């Protein structure tokens, strides 16, 4: 009963997303639509982190490592084979494989969560300094120059099996939006499967889950790898939206904003981080157009304020608030019913007495 009600919520959100997809190109400017494709890539990144951190309990500060690897893998593969479909699969595969290897060392070494945060962050930062150094002509994979600081060009999407038919920016927006919705529904489904519930159990209490004979290392590695695959997919849409991929995808500030989206949106929800991505991206974009307040400054303040004052994030706080109100309402109506019954009983017993 509870399960079906939860899933109804997912479907409602998905339909809202679908409605937005259909309406947005009619209402918004063309430029905004192009920008939105990038933001959707970032939203998929936020979703992947929401899954890994909020449901797997894995504090992955360097989720951007997989995001960036996905973007680079897509750009390089698409440049070499000339089509985007195989390149997208490649991006997902590279990100997942890298996460599986890294995760093996982390989870089977039983690295605790704070160390894990720092290790993943460090991996992203090392990738950052590595890709920045690849500026010479000798650094190329197939036909694709890695291009160091300037990065490499990311070819646009095309129809599956037909490399000649390149999608227009509006079509790219549709595709990205549908992928985001599907990814969201997939994550909602995943956290309700047996696998997902075990992951949540591990998040709540590792020792207890282990005593119940679940191999927590394997489950953690599983959800970590799935999250990385999603992040890689996000990287594809981000670099298609920008039409370039630069080392900045691995940078410290990129890793920071991903964390901020999840903190602001709320750990333990999937829709919160997605909405936070859109909202905060809008905020930083409008801050970028004026010189008074630096975007880093504002993001830093947002992060500190949320950690100190709203540690649960926006969406869970709203849900909590609604829950409290509903409980009060239920309590009040129950009290009223009780009082009513008591008075009725009272009058009946009075009637008998007469």
């Amino acid at each position, binding site marked *: 009963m509870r399960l079906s009600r939860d899933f109804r919520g997912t479907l409602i959100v998905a339909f809202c997303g679908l409605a937005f997809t259909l309406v947005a190109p009619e209402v918004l400017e063309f430029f905004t639509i192009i920008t939105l494709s990038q933001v959707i890539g970032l939203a998929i990144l936020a979703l992947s982190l929401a899954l890994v951190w909020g449901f797997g309990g894995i504090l992955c500060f360097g989720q951007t490592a997989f995001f960036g690897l996905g973007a680079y893998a897509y750009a390089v593969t698409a440049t070499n084979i000339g089509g985007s479909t195989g390149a997208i699969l490649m991006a997902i595969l590279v990100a997942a494989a890298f996460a599986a290897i890294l995760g093996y060392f982390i989870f089977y070494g039983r690295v605790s969560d704070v*160390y894990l*945060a*720092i290790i993943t962050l460090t991996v992203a930062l090392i990738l950052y300094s*590595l890709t920045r150094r*690849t500026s010479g002509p000798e650094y190329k994979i197939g036909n694709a120059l890695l291009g160091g600081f300037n990065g490499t060009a990311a070819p646009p999407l095309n129809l599956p099996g037909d490399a000649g038919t390149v999608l227009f920016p509006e079509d790219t927006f549709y595709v990205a939006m549908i992928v985001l919705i599907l990814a969201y529904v997939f994550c909602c489904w995943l956290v309700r499967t047996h696998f997902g519930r075990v992951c949540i159990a591990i998040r709540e209490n590792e020792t207890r889950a282990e005593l119940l004979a679940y191999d927590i290392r394997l489950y953690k590695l599983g959800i970590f790898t799935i999250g990385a695959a999603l992040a890689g997919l996000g990287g594809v849409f981000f670099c298609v939206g920008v039409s370039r991929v630069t080392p900045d995808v691995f940078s410290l*500030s990129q890793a920071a904003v991903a964390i901020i989206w999840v903190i602001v949106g709320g750990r333990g929800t999937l829709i919160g981080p997605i909405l936070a991505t859109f909202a905060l991206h809008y905020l930083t974009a409008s801050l970028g157009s004026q010189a008074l307040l630096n975007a880093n*400054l504002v993001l830093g303040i947002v992060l500190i304020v949320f*950690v100190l004052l709203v540690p649960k994030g926006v969406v869970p706080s709203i849900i909590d608030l609604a829950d409290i109100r509903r409980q009060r309402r239920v309590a009040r109506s129950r009290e009223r019913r009780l009082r009513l019954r008591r008075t009725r009983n009272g009058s009946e017993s009075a009637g008998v007495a007469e």
Partner: protein
Amino acid sequence: MDLVVSLALQILYGIANLALISLGLAIIFGMMRVINLAHGEFLMLGGYTVVIATNNGVNIWIAMLVLAPLVVGVIGVVVERLLIRWLYGRMIDTLLATWGLSLLFIGLVTSIFGASTATTISPPLGVITIGAYTSSGYEMFLIVVTVLLLVAVYATLKLTTLGLVARGTMQNAEMSSALGVSTSRIYMITFGLGAAVTGLAGGLLAPITGILPTIGAVYIAKAFITVISGGMAILAGTATASVLLGGVNGIVAFLTGPTIGEVALLVTAIILLRLMPRGITGTLFRKSL
């Protein structure tokens, strides 16, 4: 022979560099179990202090050795009082809050001084000739300073009352507060000292690397990896991890180039953590400082 000496000095400098940038982080982490993600920005602030002071006519040695640690130490104390002290025991929240702080510092410095620096300072010492090879005198100076700094931290922890109380607090905060130690004050002083050491390191490195608001990102990955590989013991951990990682990095970088050298550093650290999840000093030298 000359090549060997020159290479050895180069590797030694790499090791000293790692130890220098990690020591402040290790002090704060080892003492307070707080991983300071604004560590890179403390280094950056140390660098800015030196550049601004020398541009205003202060002697460069005074700027590097006195002003940089002083300014960043004071900033550290302020940060501890305003932010960190509300978050003790909530390790993940301290990580996030210091990350916010890191962004805040980058934003502030960018707003005040701009995204790039026009003026830089050059290393104050000349070159040293070893046979057919030359080596930077300033790098030699940094090796000496790092060793002195490690000795000074060791002496402070081992020989002074403050060090004794701090070590006691590190082992068992409740017990030491029951014995009349103000643990809150000890934490404040420790954080300030860690920040001061970091500021000193940032100031000393400023002539070599130049400074930018975002320069912290260059150091921070290496500093974290060193401290985490080292484990809980402040000095032994930092020293052993620096020797291991700096050595691997130096040798591989000599053989193949700096890019592969950094990869080797990272891979070594990850394999090390697979074998010793609590760092080097979690397995070896457990009684050390």
